[in-house]
Protein backbone atom coordinates (compact mmCIF):
# COMPACT_ATOMS: atom_id res chain seq x y z
CA UNK A 1 0.00 0.00 0.00
CA UNK A 2 1.37 3.45 -0.84
CA UNK A 3 2.23 5.66 2.10
CA UNK A 4 1.22 9.32 2.29
CA UNK A 5 2.56 11.86 4.74
CA UNK A 6 0.40 14.81 5.72
CA UNK A 7 2.20 17.66 7.46
CA UNK A 8 -0.20 20.01 9.18
CA UNK A 9 0.33 23.73 9.69
CA UNK A 10 1.60 23.21 13.24
CA UNK A 11 4.11 20.58 12.11
CA UNK A 12 2.06 17.51 13.12
CA UNK A 13 2.98 14.64 10.78
CA UNK A 14 0.70 11.77 9.84
CA UNK A 15 2.26 9.00 7.77
CA UNK A 16 -0.50 6.61 6.77
CA UNK A 17 -1.31 3.76 4.41
CA UNK A 18 -3.43 4.78 1.46
CA UNK A 19 -5.72 2.47 -0.43
CA UNK A 20 -5.13 2.30 -4.18
CA UNK A 21 -7.94 4.04 -6.02
CA UNK A 22 -9.05 6.12 -3.05
CA UNK A 23 -8.19 9.81 -2.92
CA UNK A 24 -5.73 11.80 -0.86
CA UNK A 25 -8.76 13.52 0.73
CA UNK A 26 -10.48 10.24 1.70
CA UNK A 27 -7.23 8.90 3.11
CA UNK A 28 -6.90 12.04 5.25
CA UNK A 29 -10.44 11.67 6.64
CA UNK A 30 -9.93 7.98 7.39
CA UNK A 31 -6.84 8.87 9.36
CA UNK A 32 -8.21 11.88 11.24
CA UNK A 33 -6.15 14.56 9.55
CA UNK A 34 -8.25 17.34 11.04
CA UNK A 35 -7.13 20.12 8.70
CA UNK A 36 -8.87 18.43 5.77
CA UNK A 37 -12.52 19.48 5.99
CA UNK A 38 -13.97 18.14 2.71
CA UNK A 39 -17.32 19.81 3.16
CA UNK A 40 -18.75 18.60 -0.16
CA UNK A 41 -17.52 15.05 0.29
CA UNK A 42 -15.27 14.88 -2.75
CA UNK A 43 -17.29 16.63 -5.43
CA UNK A 44 -14.71 19.29 -6.28
CA UNK A 45 -17.27 21.90 -5.27
CA UNK A 46 -16.14 23.41 -1.98
CA UNK A 47 -12.35 23.85 -1.89
CA UNK A 48 -12.05 22.81 1.76
CA UNK A 49 -9.60 19.94 1.19
CA UNK A 50 -6.73 22.08 -0.06
CA UNK A 51 -3.21 20.71 0.19
CA UNK A 52 0.13 22.08 -0.91
CA UNK A 53 2.00 19.25 -2.58
CA UNK A 54 5.65 18.95 -1.62
CA UNK A 55 7.84 20.52 -4.33
CA UNK A 56 9.59 17.20 -5.02
CA UNK A 57 6.20 15.55 -5.67
CA UNK A 58 4.41 18.29 -7.54
CA UNK A 59 5.37 17.12 -11.03
CA UNK A 60 4.44 13.51 -10.24
CA UNK A 61 1.04 14.47 -8.84
CA UNK A 62 0.49 16.76 -11.80
CA UNK A 63 -1.53 19.94 -12.30
CA UNK A 64 -5.21 20.46 -11.48
CA UNK A 65 -7.89 20.01 -14.12
CA UNK A 66 -9.58 23.18 -15.35
CA UNK A 67 -12.61 22.42 -13.15
CA UNK A 68 -10.35 22.05 -10.13
CA UNK A 69 -8.38 25.19 -11.09
CA UNK A 70 -11.65 27.13 -11.02
CA UNK A 71 -12.53 25.72 -7.63
CA UNK A 72 -9.10 26.76 -6.32
CA UNK A 73 -10.36 30.34 -6.74
CA UNK A 74 -12.47 29.69 -3.64
CA UNK A 75 -9.48 28.57 -1.58
CA UNK A 76 -6.98 30.76 0.19
CA UNK A 77 -3.21 31.21 -0.07
CA UNK A 78 -3.12 29.08 -3.19
CA UNK A 79 0.37 28.25 -4.45
CA UNK A 80 1.53 26.79 -7.77
CA UNK A 81 1.77 23.39 -6.04
CA UNK A 82 -1.69 23.58 -4.46
CA UNK A 83 -4.28 20.93 -5.22
CA UNK A 84 -7.65 19.84 -3.94
CA UNK A 85 -6.89 16.52 -2.28
CA UNK A 86 -10.23 15.01 -3.35
CA UNK A 87 -8.99 15.22 -6.92
CA UNK A 88 -5.74 13.30 -6.34
CA UNK A 89 -6.22 9.55 -6.83
CA UNK A 90 -3.87 7.28 -4.95
CA UNK A 91 -1.63 5.24 -7.27
CA UNK A 92 1.57 3.25 -6.73
CA UNK A 93 3.48 6.17 -8.22
CA UNK A 94 2.44 8.27 -5.20
CA UNK A 95 4.07 5.95 -2.63
CA UNK A 96 5.90 8.31 -0.27
CA UNK A 97 3.88 11.41 -1.24
CA UNK A 98 4.21 14.40 1.08
CA UNK A 99 1.50 17.06 1.26
CA UNK A 100 1.19 20.10 3.52
CA UNK A 101 -2.24 21.03 4.85
CA UNK A 102 -3.18 24.67 5.49
CA UNK A 103 -4.18 26.22 8.82
CA UNK A 104 -7.50 27.40 7.41
CA UNK A 105 -9.85 25.89 4.86
CA UNK A 106 -12.33 28.76 4.84
CA UNK A 107 -14.33 27.69 7.90
Amino acid sequence: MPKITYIEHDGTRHTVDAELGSTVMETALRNDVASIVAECGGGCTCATCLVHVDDAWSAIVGPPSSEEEEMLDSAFEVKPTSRLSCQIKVTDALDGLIVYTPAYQGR
Partner: protein
Amino acid sequence: MSETIKTDVLIIGAGPVGLFAVFELGLLDIKAHLVDILDKVGGQCAELYPEKPIYDIPGIPLITGHGLTDALMQQIKPFHPTFHLNEMVTALEKTGEPGFRLRTDAGKTFEAKCVVIAAGGGSFQPKRPPIQGIEPYEDKSVFYAVRKMDAFRGKQLLIVGGGDSALDWTLNLQPIAKRLTLVHRRDEFRGAPDSVNKMRALVAAGGMDLKIGQVTTLEGSDGQLAACSIKGNDGNVARIEVDAMLPFFGLTMKLGPVADWGIKMDDELIPVDTAAFETNIPGLFAVGDINTYPGKLKLILSGFHEAALMAQKAHRYVYPEKKLVFQYTTSSTSLQKKLGVA
Protein backbone atom coordinates in the same frame (compact mmCIF):
# COMPACT_ATOMS: atom_id res chain seq x y z
CA MET B 1 -42.52 45.25 10.13
CA SER B 2 -42.87 42.33 12.52
CA GLU B 3 -45.51 39.96 11.20
CA THR B 4 -46.32 36.82 13.15
CA ILE B 5 -46.86 33.77 11.00
CA LYS B 6 -48.67 30.84 12.55
CA THR B 7 -48.00 27.38 11.18
CA ASP B 8 -48.23 23.76 12.26
CA VAL B 9 -44.57 23.11 11.55
CA LEU B 10 -41.64 25.34 10.74
CA ILE B 11 -38.90 23.58 8.81
CA ILE B 12 -35.46 25.12 9.05
CA GLY B 13 -33.60 24.30 5.85
CA ALA B 14 -35.03 23.75 2.37
CA GLY B 15 -32.58 21.07 1.23
CA PRO B 16 -33.81 17.72 -0.10
CA VAL B 17 -34.72 16.40 3.34
CA GLY B 18 -36.53 19.60 4.38
CA LEU B 19 -38.46 19.49 1.11
CA PHE B 20 -39.43 15.85 1.52
CA ALA B 21 -40.54 16.57 5.09
CA VAL B 22 -43.21 18.83 3.54
CA PHE B 23 -44.50 15.77 1.66
CA GLU B 24 -44.64 13.45 4.64
CA LEU B 25 -46.22 16.13 6.84
CA GLY B 26 -48.62 17.10 4.07
CA LEU B 27 -49.97 13.56 3.78
CA LEU B 28 -50.93 13.89 7.44
CA ASP B 29 -52.63 17.28 6.88
CA ILE B 30 -49.82 19.16 8.58
CA LYS B 31 -48.96 22.53 7.05
CA ALA B 32 -45.38 23.72 6.84
CA HIS B 33 -43.37 26.87 6.26
CA LEU B 34 -39.69 26.61 5.37
CA VAL B 35 -36.87 29.04 6.05
CA ASP B 36 -33.54 28.86 4.23
CA ILE B 37 -30.55 31.14 4.25
CA LEU B 38 -29.89 30.55 0.53
CA ASP B 39 -31.77 32.47 -2.14
CA LYS B 40 -32.96 29.17 -3.64
CA VAL B 41 -34.31 25.83 -2.51
CA GLY B 42 -32.30 22.60 -2.68
CA GLY B 43 -29.62 23.21 -0.06
CA GLN B 44 -26.34 21.50 -0.86
CA CYS B 45 -27.94 19.92 -3.95
CA ALA B 46 -28.47 23.39 -5.35
CA GLU B 47 -25.45 25.17 -3.97
CA LEU B 48 -22.67 22.58 -4.03
CA TYR B 49 -23.52 20.11 -6.77
CA PRO B 50 -26.42 21.21 -9.01
CA GLU B 51 -24.91 19.47 -12.04
CA LYS B 52 -23.25 16.53 -10.30
CA PRO B 53 -24.81 13.08 -10.57
CA ILE B 54 -26.33 11.38 -7.52
CA TYR B 55 -26.51 7.59 -7.86
CA ASP B 56 -28.06 6.48 -4.60
CA ILE B 57 -31.59 7.79 -4.55
CA PRO B 58 -33.74 4.62 -4.35
CA GLY B 59 -35.42 3.89 -7.65
CA ILE B 60 -33.61 6.67 -9.49
CA PRO B 61 -30.39 5.34 -11.01
CA LEU B 62 -29.04 8.80 -11.82
CA ILE B 63 -30.20 12.32 -11.06
CA THR B 64 -28.40 15.64 -10.61
CA GLY B 65 -28.69 17.82 -7.54
CA HIS B 66 -30.71 20.26 -9.58
CA GLY B 67 -32.91 17.50 -10.98
CA LEU B 68 -33.64 16.08 -7.54
CA THR B 69 -34.55 19.53 -6.22
CA ASP B 70 -36.93 20.11 -9.13
CA ALA B 71 -38.52 16.68 -8.68
CA LEU B 72 -39.04 17.23 -4.96
CA MET B 73 -40.59 20.65 -5.61
CA GLN B 74 -43.01 19.00 -8.00
CA GLN B 75 -43.75 16.24 -5.50
CA ILE B 76 -44.61 18.66 -2.67
CA LYS B 77 -46.58 21.10 -4.82
CA PRO B 78 -49.99 19.72 -3.70
CA PHE B 79 -49.17 20.78 -0.15
CA HIS B 80 -48.48 24.45 -0.97
CA PRO B 81 -45.53 25.02 1.35
CA THR B 82 -44.49 28.62 1.96
CA PHE B 83 -40.82 29.43 1.49
CA HIS B 84 -38.92 32.18 3.26
CA LEU B 85 -35.63 32.30 1.38
CA ASN B 86 -32.58 34.47 2.04
CA GLU B 87 -33.47 34.29 5.71
CA MET B 88 -31.91 32.74 8.74
CA VAL B 89 -33.74 31.68 11.89
CA THR B 90 -31.81 33.49 14.58
CA ALA B 91 -33.83 32.74 17.72
CA LEU B 92 -36.01 29.91 18.97
CA GLU B 93 -37.89 29.83 22.26
CA LYS B 94 -40.22 27.27 23.72
CA THR B 95 -43.71 28.63 24.36
CA GLY B 96 -45.81 25.51 24.93
CA GLU B 97 -45.90 21.74 25.31
CA PRO B 98 -45.01 21.73 22.52
CA GLY B 99 -45.00 25.15 20.93
CA PHE B 100 -42.30 27.42 19.67
CA ARG B 101 -41.71 31.04 18.72
CA LEU B 102 -38.95 31.71 16.21
CA ARG B 103 -37.50 34.85 14.72
CA THR B 104 -35.54 35.39 11.51
CA ASP B 105 -32.90 37.93 10.61
CA ALA B 106 -35.47 39.49 8.27
CA GLY B 107 -37.62 40.42 11.24
CA LYS B 108 -40.29 37.75 10.84
CA THR B 109 -41.78 35.94 13.80
CA PHE B 110 -43.19 32.42 13.53
CA GLU B 111 -45.36 30.53 15.93
CA ALA B 112 -45.23 26.80 15.31
CA LYS B 113 -46.46 23.73 17.15
CA CYS B 114 -43.42 21.78 16.03
CA VAL B 115 -40.05 22.68 14.55
CA VAL B 116 -38.03 20.50 12.22
CA ILE B 117 -34.35 21.31 11.90
CA ALA B 118 -33.24 20.07 8.48
CA ALA B 119 -30.25 22.34 8.27
CA GLY B 120 -27.73 19.87 6.84
CA GLY B 121 -24.20 21.02 7.50
CA GLY B 122 -25.46 24.33 8.83
CA SER B 123 -26.03 27.67 7.17
CA PHE B 124 -24.18 28.61 4.04
CA GLN B 125 -22.19 31.71 4.86
CA PRO B 126 -19.50 33.60 2.96
CA LYS B 127 -15.95 32.36 3.34
CA ARG B 128 -13.87 34.81 5.29
CA PRO B 129 -10.39 35.37 3.89
CA PRO B 130 -7.61 34.54 6.36
CA ILE B 131 -6.25 38.07 6.49
CA GLN B 132 -4.87 38.97 9.89
CA GLY B 133 -7.10 41.41 11.74
CA ILE B 134 -10.00 41.40 9.27
CA GLU B 135 -12.74 40.97 11.93
CA PRO B 136 -13.00 44.58 13.14
CA TYR B 137 -13.60 45.75 9.58
CA GLU B 138 -16.39 43.30 8.82
CA ASP B 139 -19.76 44.97 8.19
CA LYS B 140 -18.08 48.37 8.52
CA SER B 141 -15.76 48.47 5.53
CA VAL B 142 -15.39 44.79 4.61
CA PHE B 143 -18.60 43.33 3.17
CA TYR B 144 -19.43 39.84 1.92
CA ALA B 145 -22.58 41.01 0.18
CA VAL B 146 -23.88 44.24 -1.32
CA ARG B 147 -27.12 45.38 0.28
CA LYS B 148 -27.27 48.95 -0.99
CA MET B 149 -25.14 49.89 -3.97
CA ASP B 150 -25.34 53.54 -3.03
CA ALA B 151 -23.26 52.86 0.09
CA PHE B 152 -20.29 52.49 -2.26
CA ARG B 153 -20.79 55.67 -4.28
CA GLY B 154 -17.63 57.78 -4.49
CA LYS B 155 -15.58 55.15 -2.62
CA GLN B 156 -12.28 53.51 -3.43
CA LEU B 157 -13.30 49.87 -3.72
CA LEU B 158 -11.39 46.64 -3.67
CA ILE B 159 -13.20 43.56 -4.94
CA VAL B 160 -11.55 40.16 -4.49
CA GLY B 161 -12.40 36.99 -6.41
CA GLY B 162 -12.76 35.54 -9.89
CA GLY B 163 -16.30 34.26 -10.14
CA ASP B 164 -19.61 35.77 -11.14
CA SER B 165 -20.19 37.55 -7.82
CA ALA B 166 -16.86 39.35 -8.04
CA LEU B 167 -17.34 40.21 -11.72
CA ASP B 168 -20.99 41.26 -11.45
CA TRP B 169 -20.28 43.60 -8.57
CA THR B 170 -17.22 44.93 -10.35
CA LEU B 171 -19.35 45.86 -13.35
CA ASN B 172 -22.21 47.23 -11.24
CA LEU B 173 -20.12 49.28 -8.85
CA GLN B 174 -17.44 50.53 -11.25
CA PRO B 175 -19.61 53.40 -12.60
CA ILE B 176 -20.36 54.79 -9.15
CA ALA B 177 -17.05 54.09 -7.37
CA LYS B 178 -14.31 56.68 -7.20
CA ARG B 179 -11.86 53.96 -8.15
CA LEU B 180 -12.30 50.20 -8.32
CA THR B 181 -9.60 47.54 -8.12
CA LEU B 182 -10.30 43.88 -8.77
CA VAL B 183 -7.86 41.39 -7.25
CA HIS B 184 -7.76 37.75 -8.31
CA ARG B 185 -5.18 35.04 -7.78
CA ARG B 186 -4.75 34.30 -11.49
CA ASP B 187 -5.33 36.08 -14.77
CA GLU B 188 -8.22 33.79 -15.69
CA PHE B 189 -11.80 34.22 -14.57
CA ARG B 190 -14.45 31.56 -14.21
CA GLY B 191 -17.30 34.06 -14.44
CA ALA B 192 -19.54 34.50 -17.48
CA PRO B 193 -17.40 35.26 -20.56
CA ASP B 194 -19.41 38.38 -21.33
CA SER B 195 -18.69 39.79 -17.86
CA VAL B 196 -15.01 38.95 -18.22
CA ASN B 197 -14.86 40.79 -21.56
CA LYS B 198 -16.60 43.84 -20.13
CA MET B 199 -14.25 43.91 -17.17
CA ARG B 200 -11.20 43.59 -19.44
CA ALA B 201 -12.49 46.43 -21.61
CA LEU B 202 -12.82 48.66 -18.55
CA VAL B 203 -9.27 47.84 -17.52
CA ALA B 204 -7.99 48.57 -21.04
CA ALA B 205 -9.84 51.88 -21.07
CA GLY B 206 -8.37 52.86 -17.73
CA GLY B 207 -11.72 52.76 -15.95
CA MET B 208 -10.56 50.32 -13.29
CA ASP B 209 -7.54 48.34 -12.12
CA LEU B 210 -6.93 44.63 -12.19
CA LYS B 211 -4.28 43.11 -9.96
CA ILE B 212 -3.24 39.47 -9.99
CA GLY B 213 -2.26 38.27 -6.54
CA GLN B 214 -3.71 38.24 -3.05
CA VAL B 215 -4.53 40.72 -0.34
CA THR B 216 -2.06 40.24 2.50
CA THR B 217 -2.54 43.09 4.96
CA LEU B 218 -5.18 45.64 5.89
CA GLU B 219 -4.62 49.09 7.36
CA GLY B 220 -7.15 51.34 9.02
CA SER B 221 -8.71 52.18 12.34
CA ASP B 222 -12.06 51.77 14.13
CA GLY B 223 -13.28 49.37 11.49
CA GLN B 224 -12.62 51.81 8.65
CA LEU B 225 -10.18 50.56 6.04
CA ALA B 226 -7.59 52.99 4.76
CA ALA B 227 -5.32 50.82 2.64
CA CYS B 228 -4.53 47.24 1.60
CA SER B 229 -1.36 45.52 0.55
CA ILE B 230 -1.60 43.20 -2.41
CA LYS B 231 1.14 40.68 -3.01
CA GLY B 232 1.46 39.94 -6.69
CA ASN B 233 2.26 36.49 -8.01
CA ASP B 234 5.64 37.98 -8.97
CA GLY B 235 6.31 38.63 -5.28
CA ASN B 236 5.99 42.41 -5.53
CA VAL B 237 3.80 44.09 -2.94
CA ALA B 238 1.61 47.02 -3.91
CA ARG B 239 -0.15 49.22 -1.39
CA ILE B 240 -3.37 50.87 -2.48
CA GLU B 241 -5.77 53.18 -0.72
CA VAL B 242 -9.12 51.54 -0.09
CA ASP B 243 -12.35 52.65 1.59
CA ALA B 244 -14.13 49.31 1.32
CA MET B 245 -13.32 45.71 0.42
CA LEU B 246 -15.69 43.07 -0.96
CA PRO B 247 -14.25 39.53 -0.85
CA PHE B 248 -16.10 36.85 -2.85
CA PHE B 249 -14.64 33.40 -2.11
CA GLY B 250 -17.85 31.41 -2.19
CA LEU B 251 -19.76 29.92 0.69
CA THR B 252 -19.04 27.52 3.48
CA MET B 253 -21.34 25.80 5.95
CA LYS B 254 -21.38 27.02 9.52
CA LEU B 255 -23.60 25.69 12.27
CA GLY B 256 -24.89 29.18 13.09
CA PRO B 257 -27.38 30.05 15.83
CA VAL B 258 -28.73 26.46 16.31
CA ALA B 259 -26.15 25.94 19.05
CA ASP B 260 -27.72 28.72 21.16
CA TRP B 261 -31.24 27.31 21.35
CA GLY B 262 -30.81 25.03 24.33
CA ILE B 263 -30.82 21.86 22.24
CA LYS B 264 -28.52 19.11 23.42
CA MET B 265 -25.65 19.02 20.90
CA ASP B 266 -22.89 16.54 20.23
CA ASP B 267 -19.95 18.08 18.37
CA GLU B 268 -22.06 20.32 16.10
CA LEU B 269 -24.64 17.57 15.53
CA ILE B 270 -28.02 17.10 17.19
CA PRO B 271 -28.60 13.75 18.91
CA VAL B 272 -32.07 12.33 18.22
CA ASP B 273 -34.00 9.17 18.97
CA THR B 274 -34.47 6.81 16.07
CA ALA B 275 -38.21 6.33 16.50
CA ALA B 276 -39.21 9.91 15.73
CA PHE B 277 -35.93 11.82 15.21
CA GLU B 278 -36.87 14.10 18.05
CA THR B 279 -34.31 16.09 20.04
CA ASN B 280 -34.18 16.41 23.81
CA ILE B 281 -36.92 19.06 23.46
CA PRO B 282 -40.35 17.52 22.70
CA GLY B 283 -41.79 18.77 19.42
CA LEU B 284 -38.38 19.84 18.14
CA PHE B 285 -37.10 17.41 15.54
CA ALA B 286 -33.83 17.15 13.61
CA VAL B 287 -33.61 15.27 10.31
CA GLY B 288 -30.93 14.82 7.66
CA ASP B 289 -27.23 15.55 7.90
CA ILE B 290 -27.53 17.67 11.04
CA ASN B 291 -28.67 14.85 13.33
CA THR B 292 -26.75 11.99 14.86
CA TYR B 293 -27.67 8.58 16.30
CA PRO B 294 -26.00 5.18 16.43
CA GLY B 295 -25.40 4.04 12.85
CA LYS B 296 -26.18 7.44 11.29
CA LEU B 297 -25.27 7.79 7.62
CA LYS B 298 -25.32 11.20 5.99
CA LEU B 299 -27.33 10.08 2.99
CA ILE B 300 -30.30 11.81 1.39
CA LEU B 301 -32.19 8.52 1.51
CA SER B 302 -31.67 8.27 5.28
CA GLY B 303 -33.00 11.81 5.65
CA PHE B 304 -36.14 10.84 3.70
CA HIS B 305 -36.78 7.94 6.08
CA GLU B 306 -36.21 10.20 9.06
CA ALA B 307 -38.71 12.73 7.69
CA ALA B 308 -41.40 10.04 7.36
CA LEU B 309 -41.05 8.89 10.96
CA MET B 310 -40.80 12.47 12.23
CA ALA B 311 -44.14 13.27 10.59
CA GLN B 312 -45.90 10.44 12.47
CA LYS B 313 -44.80 11.89 15.80
CA ALA B 314 -45.50 15.48 14.74
CA HIS B 315 -49.07 14.40 13.96
CA ARG B 316 -49.55 13.51 17.64
CA TYR B 317 -48.58 17.05 18.62
CA VAL B 318 -50.51 18.86 15.91
CA TYR B 319 -53.67 16.72 16.17
CA PRO B 320 -53.56 15.24 19.67
CA GLU B 321 -57.24 14.24 19.47
CA LYS B 322 -56.93 12.33 16.17
CA LYS B 323 -55.92 8.72 15.83
CA LEU B 324 -53.50 8.22 12.98
CA VAL B 325 -54.27 5.31 10.69
CA PHE B 326 -51.33 4.28 8.58
CA GLN B 327 -52.10 4.41 4.85
CA TYR B 328 -50.39 3.84 1.52
CA THR B 329 -50.41 6.39 -1.33
CA THR B 330 -50.94 3.47 -3.75
CA SER B 331 -54.31 2.52 -2.32
CA SER B 332 -55.65 5.26 -0.06
CA THR B 333 -58.23 7.49 -1.72
CA SER B 334 -57.85 9.98 1.08
CA LEU B 335 -54.11 10.33 0.49
CA GLN B 336 -54.64 10.46 -3.26
CA LYS B 337 -57.12 13.30 -2.81
CA LYS B 338 -54.49 15.25 -0.88
CA LEU B 339 -52.07 14.62 -3.75
CA GLY B 340 -54.66 15.84 -6.22
CA VAL B 341 -54.73 12.57 -8.16
CA ALA B 342 -58.00 11.03 -6.99
